[in-house]
């Protein structure tokens, strides 16, 4: 998270109100130590998971996007919209670092000049869309589409926003790297849900990334045995029958996985892949079946799908989706 504002550090109770941040930030500790108190502090507000009222994001829409690890919104143009995710191009208010891989939208588009780093286009979860703030004209949307297609085809942008980079010492190279760095947290919630096609392995990867022990997920409080959870992470067990929805959501929360439709899709996939319900269709009888070989159980796809939906519904309810 970014440092508090300077004047926030000047507040009377900065040392206590900002304790967590100050513990890890020598710059801010030094400021707090040097300045006198004078200001009423404001609440520390985490990025809200706002419930968007109105139509969902559509291509051409300009929205703000939030991410759990930043207190600032990103403004971006929606290029593609699906049920679980959006492809966006960030719109930045500082155009200083424009190159020929960027588009610069003039002030009459959003009210201020905007840098659209085409190379920075990526996906976010649809739940990260916080609020609509504007809409691009068809002309400007077409401009971004053309730039996007050109860039990812390795061609020159039709209307580049800046001059080309012709030398390695050009500071814009580093500036773009820093911009990409700054954008990464916004795309992280989507990226971390793409590492597998089932929820279990996704959770395993996330837990590994965060170096968390199973105890920290508090799964036993929800009546889930460790071996069961491990089997779930390995993609070997049906979470519908083995892991209650409330326990799953609590564990996902501990892991910092964003509640999203993508998680529901992954959970459905986990159920379908591992469903061993009551409605088992026996394998067809073989004319010359060898003695002692049992028929292979084959789950009923319809029953598996129903179970997957039930589990997804339960998770959605727990997640407040």
């Amino acid at each position: 998270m970014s440092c508090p504002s300077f004047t926030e550090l000047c507040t009377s109770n900065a040392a206590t109100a900002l304790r967590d941040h100050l513990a890890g930030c020598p710059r801010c500790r030094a400021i707090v130590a040097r300045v006198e108190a004078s200001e009423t502090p404001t609440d520390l507000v985490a990025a809200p998971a706002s419930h968007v009222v109105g139509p969902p994001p559509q291509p051409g829409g300009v929205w703000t996007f939030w991410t759990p690890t930043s207190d600032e919104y990103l403004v971006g143009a929606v290029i593609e919209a699906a049920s679980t995710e959006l492809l966006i191009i960030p719109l930045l208010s500082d155009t200083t670092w424009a190159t020929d891989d960027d588009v610069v939208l003039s002030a009459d588009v959003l009210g201020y000049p905007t840098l659209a780093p085409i190379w920075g286009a990526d996906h976010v979860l649809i739940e990260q869309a916080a609020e609509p703030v504007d809409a691009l004209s068809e002309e400007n949307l077409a401009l971004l589409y053309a730039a996007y297609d050109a860039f990812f085809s390795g061609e020159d942008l039709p209307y580049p926003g800046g001059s080309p980079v012709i030398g390695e010492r050009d500071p814009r190279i580093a500036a773009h790297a820093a911009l990409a760095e700054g954008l990464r947290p916004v795309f992280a919630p989507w990226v971390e849900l793409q590492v597998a096609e089932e929820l279990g392995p996704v959770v395993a990867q996330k837990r590994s990334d965060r170096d968390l022990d199973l105890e920290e997920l508090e799964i036993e409080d929800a009546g889930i045995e460790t071996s069961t959870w491990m089997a779930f992470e390995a993609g070997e067990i049906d979470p519908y029958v083995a892991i209650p929805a409330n326990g799953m959501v609590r564990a996902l929360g501990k892991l910092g996985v964003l509640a999203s439709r993508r998680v529901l899709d992954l959970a459905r996939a986990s159920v379908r892949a591992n469903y061993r319900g009551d409605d088992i269709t026996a394998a067809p009888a073989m004319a010359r079946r060898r003695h002692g070989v049992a028929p292979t159980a084959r789950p009923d796809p319809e029953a598996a799908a129903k179970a997957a939906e039930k589990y997804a519904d339960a998770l959605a309810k727990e997640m407040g989706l």
Partner: protein
Amino acid sequence: MTEVEYVAARAAILAGDEPPASLLEDCRRRVVLLIRHAALPAHYSPYGVWSEEATEEVYADWVAVRLVERGQLRAMLQRAPALRVFRRMVETSVRQHLIDGLKRSQATNLYERVVELLEGGQFTSSGTGPGRLWRLVHGSAEPFGGDDRRLLAIAWSLGEFRVIRYDLTARKLSPLLGSEELLRFVVGMLEAGGMTAATIVHALRLRFGLEEDQPLGELEEALHATNAPDPQEAPVIAELVTATLAELTERQAKVLMATDDVPVRELAIQLGCSTGTISHERGRIADILGRLGADAPGVLNQVLETLFQQNV
């Protein structure tokens, strides 16, 4: 301003309302606190010291240039869901505004410095006057033939430069680009081909964003302005709006209300006059707005708003 008040103000402004006085007052307070707590050095001040007058001037200039003219209030509000985030952005914006001002103030004699450097014996030239073409002694004799994009690309390729330096001993700022940095820039540019001094200065301006902001005095710019006025100036603006409406003729008012989308010929037909008359009326409108100070975006917006309300 409380968090709740901020959230309400943010939603209202993003929906098109004018900024409330409480939000601007909070911004002003940020500026005062930044200065009071020495977060901005004295040489950032336009007067070299932070007096009350300097503080107010900086605040007013920042509001006019950044928040209103450049639309940065909207940009910041979109990105700041919470008051603390907004305040942080305000601080950054004020600081950047002052730095940009320093760059401009320290770049006033740039052309003379470049000419002096070129004439110092390290370069060779051909021609005379403004068209005098400078090149490196052992460099290409070919004149640079690229456009602005190419010129800027070369300027960027020269790497980082320290634009502003503050000499603590002398207690003063160096000119934009110290002597060594300026020499490095000039040599780097001339490696791309022969250039006039003006071309090199143009490259400097492009590279370091030194283009002077155009004053919002022209009709076209004013017509495109969309930002709201400072509520603290509301009584003054109200008087200007009234005076402007009083001086405009009916036709001038109609011309003023016509958007850019309407071609001059079509507007002329609508108003039953010639296209020449439309051009003439536009000239007069510009005179009136300029004379009354009504070409400021906030005033003109209110003039137009009033006209359209009366036109319903």
